[in-house]
């Protein structure tokens, strides 16, 4: 129970993951769905980065001379999450392009109205 108050980054990222998941799943508006997807992804990135962070160490950049492995935080999650951001941006752009197409063809971006229409 006390981990709720000491590991606040992880707890916060879990709450954000829930909020993003619910926004992606339950909202009818497509733009809000896409924003929810972005929130969900960044919450997972925050979880990863918080796992790589070690208190009292500096960023993994060598300034002047190398201070040994013990002086820096774990650089692997940062490198992975950079790839994750690229993926999130490309999926977002693709989904927004589909949203524009949907509006051109159906005249609305509310998903429940679109699903009621027959596609013909």
């Amino acid at each position, binding site marked *: 129970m006390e981990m709720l108050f000491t590991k606040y980054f992880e707890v916060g990222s879990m709450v954000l993951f829930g909020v993003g998941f619910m926004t992606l799943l339950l909202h009818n508006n497509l733009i809000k769905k896409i924003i929810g997807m972005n929130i969900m992804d960044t919450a997972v990135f925050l979880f990863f980065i918080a796992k790589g962070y070690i208190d009292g160490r500096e*960023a993994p*950049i*060598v*300034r*002047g001379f190398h201070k040994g492995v013990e002086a820096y935080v774990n650089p692997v999650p940062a490198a992975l999450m*950079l790839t994750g*951001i*690229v993926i999130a941006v490309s999926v977002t*752009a693709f989904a*927004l*392009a589909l949203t*524009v197409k949907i509006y051109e063809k159906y005249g609305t971006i509310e998903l429940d109205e679109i699903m009621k229409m027959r596609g013909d």
Partner: protein
Amino acid sequence: MKNTILKEVSKIVIPFIQIFSIYIIFHGHLSPGGGFAGGTIFGASLILYRIVYGKGDAQKKISYKRLMHLMCISLIFYGVLKGYGFITGGSYIDLFEIPLGTPGRILSGGYILPLNIAVGIVVAMVMYLFFTLFYEGEV
């Protein structure tokens, strides 16, 4: 957009944005930055040019054909160079090892710098492509 103040200010600002993005791309392998972040900023400068000067002027600078060719050539260059590195590393052929690089010297990173430049070009072009496709429907 016919606004003299915007045009004059952006004439001064755009080169500085581009120089900053090139700084970020060139420092990517030794300090924070890299091809993706720098390329995004370079794409932002192209987007600013497009918004201020309109479609005609921007198409003279970057036509659709030139954009596609730049993107594809950078991607092929990236694939071939990275594949060469992968295959020599995986097959234990020690033709040319990547040097580890010393902080503060830009050229000491082996071929990570050309790879970063290729990534920067691709990302800048893709950001510009996204923007034009969303803004006016054509490049």
